[in-house]
């Protein structure tokens, strides 16, 4: 078998033991890697209803066949576990040297079980695994932890670590790497923290098994150059992802004031032009030639690496329109190891609840200094307020009550990313049907929707497009694994990926083969939800209710007086379910399961809820 090492490293933190396990072609071809490997492993090995923050949950680091190969943007790693934020399957990806190093150490997946009794650093070097004390950096942020690791092991090792957010079980804490990279929005940092696992350090020296390494080396080098040239020609890296901020503001899709508003006259102060002008450095992931991380000096003079999502959620969504102050909030999130999108959503929801008189407090929109203190409380779980903020908007709304659930901007517990969908039904469907909760990484349909369809329409074409994008973004890129940016931002053709995959594995797959794997993964994620939540219903695939509230419609601008229609959204959801072969609840039918080779999983799922034929 080429393309996979065929080896899994299983580590037990409770017993301080490890062992290697092998897998064969059937598993490799059916689940491919990354999200596919992680999901199938968690499905097979987790007890239903397991405490996500208990020792029986498993923390997984999963790689795919092209991960770590020198080719466009293959430096990504998937981290996964049952999510403490949503209760379903949770994962995320991040650029890290772990990708290459773990594969060179000889593994396609790391499964971490149990929990350590004291803060631990897991050190992996080829066949060697060590459980080392990390008390010295327990309580420290990710930057100091990273420095401490680099001082001991050099800068070439792969590092995953957590900050105080993960240690204190903040439910939207992330896993961090390379000082500027984060992944695992649905609380993957908290899962590491619950296991007292402060960091994972990986070093490898073996070749990654490939069917035709010479061809791949030549092809990868040429394509890296081409992507770089495409980037230079297009000028994309001048603003990277932040070019979208000004556009969202123009078309009334910007998150402002906990998404109560879609535009703001001060948005220009934090847009891509201002970011480019304030740039002090540019960063990227390994094997990337179109770097997206634009660093600015924050208000305290520290380097803070910004992109659209964190400016949107920590900036406009909080009505903080000073770029250096947004930089400070982002820096704190990165250092504490908190997800910037969810953190912005949580603080926005808190300010909104105060504004509406549903909870007492003195935090207001626009209060950047206040936001810094709230991030500290949330990361440390300090006091009642810290605990409230650390649990995310879904749980906050349950505690606050008074109808606040309607404006708690989340789906399935995961906070909505930085697109305000008051009149973007397709993007609302994308958020609603995202299997890990509201995340733009699954299907970013908003530009298609606003440019190539009638914006205020709910036709089957939009459902079809969401599924197409989910197959690419939530599917292909999450399991082979690679970054989607060359494709989504520069127009790098998808056909390149089967070529890489086939050159590495010696197989002869087409894009259709990949779509089937993606559909299999999405269907199993739905079975995972059914198993964890037998009373699952289609409302779990609804976006926040405030997007359907006529009282929340914009008073002026491009979408004045308009808002999403719940009855029509239900129709759009029906289209989506029908195209996927799922029933009216959004659960795969037996027929669909059979077509996707999920008969065994379907039988297991039937123990928790009825499946339709």
């Amino acid at each position, binding site marked *: 078998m080429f393309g996979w090492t065929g080896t899994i490293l299983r580590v037990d933190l409770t017993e301080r033991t490890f062992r290697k396990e092998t897998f064969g072609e059937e598993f490799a071809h059916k689940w491919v890697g990354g999200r596919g490997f992680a999901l199938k492993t968690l499905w097979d090995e987790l007890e239903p209803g397991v405490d996500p923050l208990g020792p029986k949950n498993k923390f997984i680091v999963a790689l795919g066949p092209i991960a770590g190969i020198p080719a466009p943007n293959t430096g990504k790693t998937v981290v996964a576990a049952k999510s403490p934020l949503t209760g379903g399957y949770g994962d995320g990806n991040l650029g890290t040297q772990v990708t290459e190093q773990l594969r060179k150490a000889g593994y396609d997946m790391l499964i971490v079980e149990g929990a350590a009794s004291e803060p631990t650093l897991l050190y992996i070097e080829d066949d060697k695994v060590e459980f080392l004390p990390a008390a010295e950096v327990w309580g420290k942020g990710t930057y100091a932890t990273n420095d401490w690791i680099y001082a001991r092991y050099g800068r070439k090792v792969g590092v995953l670590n957590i900050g105080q957010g993960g240690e204190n079980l903040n439910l939207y804490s992330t896993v961090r790497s390379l000082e500027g990279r984060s992944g695992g929005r649905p609380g993957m940092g908290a899962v590491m923290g619950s296991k007292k696992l402060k960091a994972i350090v990986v070093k490898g020296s073996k070749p990654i098994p490939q069917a035709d390494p010479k061809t791949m080396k030549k092809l990868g080098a040429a394509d890296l150059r081409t992507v770089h040239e495409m980037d230079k020609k297009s000028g994309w890296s001048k603003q990277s992802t932040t070019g979208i901020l000004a556009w969202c503001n123009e078309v009334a899709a910007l998150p402002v004031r906990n998404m109560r508003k879609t535009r703001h006259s001060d948005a220009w102060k934090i847009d891509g032009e201002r970011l480019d002008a304030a740039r002090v450095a540019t960063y990227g992931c390994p094997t990337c030639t179109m770097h997206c991380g634009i660093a600015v000096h924050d208000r305290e003079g520290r380097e803070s690496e910004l992109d659209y999502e964190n400016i949107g959620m920590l900036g406009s969504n909080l009505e903080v329109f000073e770029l250096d102050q947004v930089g400070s909030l982002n820096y704190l999130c990165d250092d504490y190891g908190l997800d910037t999108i969810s953190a912005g959503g949580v603080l926005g929801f808190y300010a909104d609840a105060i504004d509406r008189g549903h909870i007492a407090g003195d935090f207001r929109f626009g209060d950047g200094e206040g936001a810094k203190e709230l991030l500290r409380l949330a990361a440390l779980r300090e006091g009642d307020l810290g605990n409230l903020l650390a649990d995310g908007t879904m749980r906050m709304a349950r505690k606050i009550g008074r109808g606040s659930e309607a404006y708690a901007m989340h789906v399935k517990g995961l906070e909505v990313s930085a697109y305000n969908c008051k009149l973007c039904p397709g993007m609302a469907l994308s958020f609603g049907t995202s299997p890990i909760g509201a995340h733009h990484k699954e299907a970013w349909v908003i530009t298609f929707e606003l440019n190539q369809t009638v914006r205020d329409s709910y036709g089957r074409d939009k459902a079809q497009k969401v599924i197409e994008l989910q197959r690419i973004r939530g599917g292909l890129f999450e399991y082979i694994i690679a970054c989607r940016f060359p494709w*989504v931002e520069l127009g790098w053709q998808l056909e390149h990926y089967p070529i890489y995959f086939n050159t590495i594995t010696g197989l002869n797959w087409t894009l259709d083969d990949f779509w089937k794997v993606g559909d299999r993964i999405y269907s199993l994620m739905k079975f995972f939800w059914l198993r964890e939540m037998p009373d699952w219903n289609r409302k779990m695939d609804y976006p926040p209710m405030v997007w359907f509230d006529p009282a929340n419609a914009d008073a002026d601008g491009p979408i004045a007086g308009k808002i999403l229609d719940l009855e029509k959204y239900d129709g759009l959801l029906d289209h989506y379910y029908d195209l996927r072969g799922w029933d009216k609840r959004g659960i795969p039918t037996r027929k669909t399961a059979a077509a996707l080779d999920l008969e065994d999983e379907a039988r297991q799922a039937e123990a928790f809820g009825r499946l339709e034929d």
Partner: protein
Amino acid sequence: MKVTVKMIGSFVYATGFSERIFDLAPGTTTDELLEIVEIEKSRPMIVARNGQAVVQGEKLEDGDRVVIAPIFSGGQAAGPH
């Protein structure tokens, strides 16, 4: 007639301006505007007029705000299998 044109992302650098008011002949279309601001028509883009996507050849009116953005939507759509 006066039309405000706002450039997004990399088009700011391609055209040399971020936002500018143009004095245009009545009846000027969005396609003609693209020639005036010197953006290659072959470049994938999204053009919005007063916050709404335009149809090809749409006529502009006095006071319009036109936003021109490089497309951010991927290399190729996947067909259903």
